[in-house]
C-alpha cells in the first residue's frame, strides 16, 4: 500500500506534442482515484507514466515519498490491468496468475505461489477455469484473470486502464461492482482510467477530470456534480449533460432563451458587472408544473414546446429546441467539440418524472428553481456560482465516508484472520 504523488508531471512526445501539461495530484494511501476525460485528454498517458511504460518529460512522480521517475516498471511494484487484458496466450489461467511470482525478482517457493493463486482464484471465482487457456475464456473471465494477476503481487497500488471498455453493457455493470467491492475489501490504492462517466461517478473516492492534458478539477463525484469549477467539468459530468443557455443581464433580471429569471442575492453576486453569462441547468432541475406534487414557490415557470420525448421507464426525457445567443455560440460549440460531441442543434434536455403526461408536440409548463442555476463566465468558462464552503463540505463528507469504508475493510480482514 502506498500513496502516489504527482508533481507538475509533463509529457512531451518526440514530435513536440505535449500530451500532459503539468499535472499535480496527490493520491492518498488506500484511495480510489479516477482519471476521466474525453479521448485525447492524456489520461492514459498519465497512467502509463505512473506505471513506468512512458518516460516522464518533466516533473516528479513519488510513490511513498520516494521519487521513482527513473525507475523501471518492474521496480515500482505496481500492478496494472490493461484495456485488452494482455493475458499470456501460451499459459494456462493458473500460470497467467502465477506469472509475476515466477519471475526472477520474486523469491517465492511453489507452495506459497500455489496458495496465493488459489486464494485469488477463489476470490475471483476462477477455480474451475485454472487449467484453461485464455483463448477459451469469455471476456468477463479474461478480465477476472487479469485482475487475479494483479492481486497476487501484493503490489503497492492497482492501475486500471479502461478495463471494462471491451465488455458488453450488462457485464460491464457487473464487473464495475466487482471492482468496487474488491478495492474496498483489499483497501489498496487504485488509479483507474476511464472515459465512461458512470464508472467515474460510481467507483471513485475522488475523480480527476482532464482536458487536453490539463487537470481541471479533482473532487468527489458529488463535488464535481454539484460544484463544478468550470464549464468543461459541468458539461462533462452528468448524463444527459448539463444544458447551457445564454443569459443576458437586464437590470435585475436574467433573460434566458426560455424564461426570465429574477436575480436573487446569490446570482447577483455571481453576475457582478457582466452583461452576458452562460447559464447551466441540469436536466433534472426541471419539474412538470402540472404534474408535480412539490410545492412550487419561488421558482420560475416557463411555457415551452416539447419537440421530442423519450420514455425510459424510470424517467422521461423531453427535448426543447431554443435559439442561443450568437455571442456565446462559438464558446459552446468549442466546448461541445472538447466533449467529443457533435450536436447539430441547440436543444434543452429535461428529465421529468416518468409519470408525467407530457408527450412530443405538447406545450408544457416547466418549473425550475433559480437555486439550481450555475452561471459561467462566457470568456474563461469559470463557474461564478461555485460555493467554496459547500464544496469543502462535500469533500469532507466523502473523506469521512472513505475512512469508514477502509476501517470496515480492516475490521473484516482482522476477523477473517482470526477465523483462519
Amino acid at each position, binding site marked *: 500500500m502506498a500513496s502516489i504523488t504527482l508533481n507538475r508531471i509533463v509529457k512531451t512526445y518526440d514530435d513536440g506534442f505535449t500530451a500532459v501539461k503539468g499535472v499535480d495530484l496527490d493520491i492518498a494511501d488506500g484511495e480510489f482515484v479516477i482519471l476521466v476525460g474525453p479521448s485525447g485528454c492524456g489520461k492514459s498517458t498519465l497512467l502509463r507514466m505512473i*506505471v*513506468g*511504460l512512458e518516460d516522464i518529460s518533466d516533473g516528479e512522480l513519488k510513490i511513498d515519498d520516494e521519487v521513482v521517475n527513473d525507475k*523501471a*516498471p*518492474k521496480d515500482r*511494484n*505496481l*500492478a*496494472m490491468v*490493461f484495456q*485488452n*487484458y*494482455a*493475458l*499470456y*496466450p*501460451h499459459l494456462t489461467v493458473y500460470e497467467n496468475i502465477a*506469472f*509475476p511470482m515466477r*519471475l*526472477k*525478482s*520474486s523469491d517465492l517457493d511453489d507452495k506459497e505461489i500455489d496458495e496465493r493463486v488459489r486464494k485469488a482464484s477463489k476470490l475471483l471465482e476462477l477455480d474451475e477455469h485454472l487449467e484453461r*487457456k*485464455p*483463448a*477459451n*475464456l469469455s*471476456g468477463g473471465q*479474461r478480465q477476472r484473470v487479469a485482475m487475479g*494477476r494483479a492481486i497476487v*503481487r501484493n503490489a503497492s497500488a492497482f492501475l486500471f486502464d479502461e478495463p471494462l471498455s*471491451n465488455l458488453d453493457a450488462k457485464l460491464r455493470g457487473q464487473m464495475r461492482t466487482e471492482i468496487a467491492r474488491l478495492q474496498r475489501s483489499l483497501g489498496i490504492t487504485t488509479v483507474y482510467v476511464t472515459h465512461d462517466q458512470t464508472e467515474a461517478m460510481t467507483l471513485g473516492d475522488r475523480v480527476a477530470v482532464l482536458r487536453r492534458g490539463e487537470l481541471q478539477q479533482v473532487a468527489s463525484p458529488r463535488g464535481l456534480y454539484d460544484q463544478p469549477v468550470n464549464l468543461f467539468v459541468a458539461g462533462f459530468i452528468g448524463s444527459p449533460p448539463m444544458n447551457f443557455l445564454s443569459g443576458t443581464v437586464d437590470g435585475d433580471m436574467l433573460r434566458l432563451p426560455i424564461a426570465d429569471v429574477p436575480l436573487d442575492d446569490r446570482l447577483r453576486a455571481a453576475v457582478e458587472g457582466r452583461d452576458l453569462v452562460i447559464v447551466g441547468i441540469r436536466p433534472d432541475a426541471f419539474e412538470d408544473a402540472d404534474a408535480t406534487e412539490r410545492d412550487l414557490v419561488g421558482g420560475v415557470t416557463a411555457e415551452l414546446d416539447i419537440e421530442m420525448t423519450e420514455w425510459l421507464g424510470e424517467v422521461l426525457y423531453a427535448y426543447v429546441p431554443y435559439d442561443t445567443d450568437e455571442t456565446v455560440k462559438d464558446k459552446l460549440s468549442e466546448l461541445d467539440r472538447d466533449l467529443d460531441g457533435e450536436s447539430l442543434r441547440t436543444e434543452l434536455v429535461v428529465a421529468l418524472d416518468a409519470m408525467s403526461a407530457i408527450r412530443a408536440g405538447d406545450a408544457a409548463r416547466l418549473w425550475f428553481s433559480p437555486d439550481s442555476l450555475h452561471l459561467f463566465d462566457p470568456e474563461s468558462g469559470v463557474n461564478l456560482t461555485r460555493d467554496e464552503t459547500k464544496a469543502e463540505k462535500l469533500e469532507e463528507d466523502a473523506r469521512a465516508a472513505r475512512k469508514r469504508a477502509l476501517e470496515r475493510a480492516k475490521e473484516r480482514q482482522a476477523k477473517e484472520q482470526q477465523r483462519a
Partner: protein
Amino acid sequence: MRAMTWPQRITWIVIIAVVLVWSLFPVFSIAMTSFKTPAGLFSGTLLPEEWTLDNYATILAPGGSAQDLFLPALRNSIGISLIATFIAVVLATLCAYAIARLDFPGKRIILTTALAVSVFPIVSIVTPLFNLWRVVGLYDTWLGLIIPYLSLTLPISIWTLAAFFRQIPWELEQAAQVDGATPFEAFRKTVVPLAAPGVFTTAIIAFFIAWNDFVYGISLTSTDAARPVPAALSFFTGASQFEEPTGAISAAAIVVTIPIVIVVVIFQRRIVSGLTQGAVKG
C-alpha cells in the same frame, strides 16, 4: 466452417489430387530411377524391371565410385546450410524485433534494402564475388559460401519475422514488465514462446534456400573442402564414358531430400499459427 456440399467436396478432392500428382510425381519418378540398373535406365518404364541398390552403394558404400565425391559434399551441405540458417535466424530475429517494436530513423530503408537484395539476380554478382573471394582467400571455404547464403536468407527471414513480431501484442511485454520482469525476461517469457512458430518457419525457409543453392555452390568452390551437394552432383560420371550417371544422381537426389523431409516433419507441429489467439480481445 460451413459444411461443403457434395459437388464442392468432389471439386476439392479433384484439385487436391491434381496438385499432389503434379508435385509428387517427379519425386516418385526419381525415386524409381534410383533403383534401376544402368541397363534398365532406358527401358522406358516407370517402375524398374530389375530392382537394385547399386546406385546407393555407388554414392554411400565404402569403395563406391562416387562415394568420395558425394559424402564430403553432403557433409559440406549440411554444415554450411545449418550454420547459414542459424546465423540468419539469430540476426533476423534481432533485426525484425527492432523493426516491429522500435521507431528509429532508417527503418524503412532497412526493409527496402532487404527486399532489393533479395530480388537482385545471383548470376550478376557471382563473377565479381569469385574474383574477390580468390583475392581474400575465401574461395573454396565454408565461410566463402556462408556469407553469400546469408545474403539470400537474411532478407526473407527479416521480412517473415517482422510480420510475425508485429502480430504479437506489445501489451504482453509491457504487462510482463509491470509484473516485475526485466526487459530481457519479458522478451524471453512472452515474445519468444509466441514467436517460436515464426522462428521455426523462417528457419525452414532459410535452410531450404541454402540447401538448394547451385550457382554459388558451383562457382565459389573447386574441391571437397566446401563443395555442396547440388554442385557435386554435376561432377558425377558413369563407370565408362558411354554410361550415363543418371542412376547415381537420382540416388543422391533422394538422399538429399531426406534431411529436408525430416526437418519439416520435426518442426511441423511447432509451426502452428493462431497461438496468439486470446492474448487480447479479438
